[in-house]
């Protein structure tokens, strides 16, 4: 069963408080779509609208070709995994996984086999008789995923599934989720997260959300290399955003001229120059800018140097330095013209 998800101008409001404002988004069958945004951006609300736990004040939600806007959650045919797992504490692991099958009255003879398959798929086959409280966080998460997959949903909703795990477990589970998706290529996944690494690693496409609205949507590469809004640029990859003025055939940053592809940005207006910290180098090069060091952070393999250039802070991630520059000393930073993206001022706010 393969079915995508479609939001058709979906708005959700609590009283006068609009938490999701006219969302238009399509998740293709078999696609992993990440909803990325800070807390309060409406991403979880969008997921809950698909699950049926919030009812939109306007707009329609489709799963496959079916309009599910008015359907109660139990008739939507979705699998869902939430941050706090919500395993039933009074049921053993196998009973948790069998819950959906029994509730949907699957043929009795089929249930043990499907439970075993689901547990095997998530590597939890050896824990069938345990109670959830006897498992670690990572194991509980696997059981929660097995429980959602056992009902063979066409759509899997993951709401910050890894945020309760520690960093090491998280990267392991991330690889695990990617493998599961390769094994189940027909399942569409809507993955809500505030962590850009999760989104960049796992998603076919990322929808960036902020303040109840969809700000940007594209493949991870598109969003990272050519963000369309300043919000996307700073949220995905933490880019340097520098105000520049665009003249005819030239761009200047605080008096210094920089070479950059102006693209569709018209001359004579303000614009934002966006360049990733790891593409900024210390020393002379193309597009050199003079500045003073305001802070140096050692991050193991790299140093992050904050340089004040004409009143704007520029972050540069450089390979670990033997002799990091002293605070207050003058340095030169540079970046290649092709590594920078120019955003028209009008899109700064999305």
């Amino acid at each position, binding site marked *: 069963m393969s079915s995508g998800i479609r939001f058709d101008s979906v708005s959700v409001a*609590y009283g006068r408080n609009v938490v999701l404002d006219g969302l238009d988004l399509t998740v293709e069958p078999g696609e992993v779509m990440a909803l990325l945004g800070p807390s309060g951006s409406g991403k979880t609300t969008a997921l809950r609208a698909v699950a049926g736990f919030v009812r939109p004040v306007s707009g329609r939600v489709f799963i496959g070709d079916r309009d599910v806007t008015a359907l109660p959650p139990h008739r939507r045919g979705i699998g869902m995994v939430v941050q706090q797992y919500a395993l039933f504490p009074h049921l053993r692991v196998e009973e948790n996984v069998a819950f959906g099958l029994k509730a949907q009255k699957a043929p009795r003879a089929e249930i043990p086999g499907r439970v075993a398959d689901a547990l095997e798929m998530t590597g939890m086959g050896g824990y069938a008789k345990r109670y959830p409280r006897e498992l670690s966080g990572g194991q509980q998460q696997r059981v929660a995923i097995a*429980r959602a997959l056992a009902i063979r949903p066409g759509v899997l909703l993951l709401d910050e599934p890894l945020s309760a795990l520690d960093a090491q477990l998280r990267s392991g589970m991330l690889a695990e989720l990617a493998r599961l998706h390769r094994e189940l290529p027909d399942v569409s996944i809507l993955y809500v997260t505030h962590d850009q690494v999760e989104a960049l690693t796992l998603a076919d496409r990322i929808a960036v959300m902020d303040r109840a609205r969809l700000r940007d949507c594209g493949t991870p590469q598109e969003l990272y290399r050519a963000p369309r809004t300043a919000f996307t640029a700073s949220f995905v990859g933490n880019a340097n955003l520098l105000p520049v003025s665009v003249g005819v055939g030239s761009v200047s940053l605080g008096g210094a001229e920089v070479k950059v592809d102006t693209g569709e940005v018209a001359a004579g207006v303000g614009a934002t120059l966006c360049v990733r910290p790891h593409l900024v180098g210390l020393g002379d090069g193309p597009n050199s800018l003079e500045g003073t060091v305001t802070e140096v952070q050692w991050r193991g393999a790299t140093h992050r140097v904050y340089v004040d250039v004409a009143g704007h802070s520029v972050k540069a991630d450089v390979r670990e330095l033997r002799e990091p520059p002293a605070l207050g000393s003058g340095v030169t930073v540079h970046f290649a013209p092709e590594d920078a993206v120019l955003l028209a001022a009008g899109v700064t706010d999305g």
Partner: protein
Amino acid sequence: MLVHSRKGKWATWTVFFVLFLPLFALPLLVIVAASFAGHWSGALPSDFTAEHYSAATRGESLQALTTSLLTALGASLIALAAGTWAALAAAALKRRGDGTSRLSRGCGRLLDALFIMPVAVPSVVVGLAVLVAFSKPPVILNGTSTIVVLAHAILVTAFAYQSVSAAILRLDPAYEQAAASLGARPAYVLWRVKLPLLLPSLTAAAGLCFALSMGELSATMMLYPPDWTPLPVRIYAATDRGATFTGAALAVVLMAATLLVLFAVSRIRTRASYR
């Protein structure tokens, strides 16, 4: 213990023994002492005897105990069912979020108020109300055991409602939502997820209702038929005619029976708690 210094600990224990023990434990000890007493004219009872107990566990007294146990069992089961149902309904009505109109939230609050009424109204009034209401057609229950059980149920449902309401409020909605997302209908979610998770609170509520019903006197006095005399009524009657020691023995029997049932219920509760 939150007090850490040795002196502080001693001081707290002293206060406990001097103030609380006499207040709470001594009256009960006096009852136990009186139940064994043949005479009590000095500071302490004398002529110890077990005669009161042989009287208290035979014939009409034994029947009164059975009556009390049956009444309490019936009343607490009715109260638990009605109170849980109403608490679940009120929680559903009051739930915030989508589709909840102001009207349904109002209905939820009305249910709250309705179920607090029997606590606020004196039980004599409840007894009288039940008596008046069921003494005329269409439903005549006057002089039956049913009316006693009914009055007890009305009185204790409020407590069941409140403790189950509090438990529902603490129940994480994520369980219910996870079950719904797995395709479980609301009734299936109720029986397989919500009620099992509420079980510890339900047994606690049942125990509370049982204990309250075992001790109920004032409404019972207005309603009981001669062939359905609960134990508190017999204790009152015994003391009223001057047989204080017999009354004390009956009181100890009532206390012991109630405690035994509460203990059994709390054993079930420990087995039913998951976290």
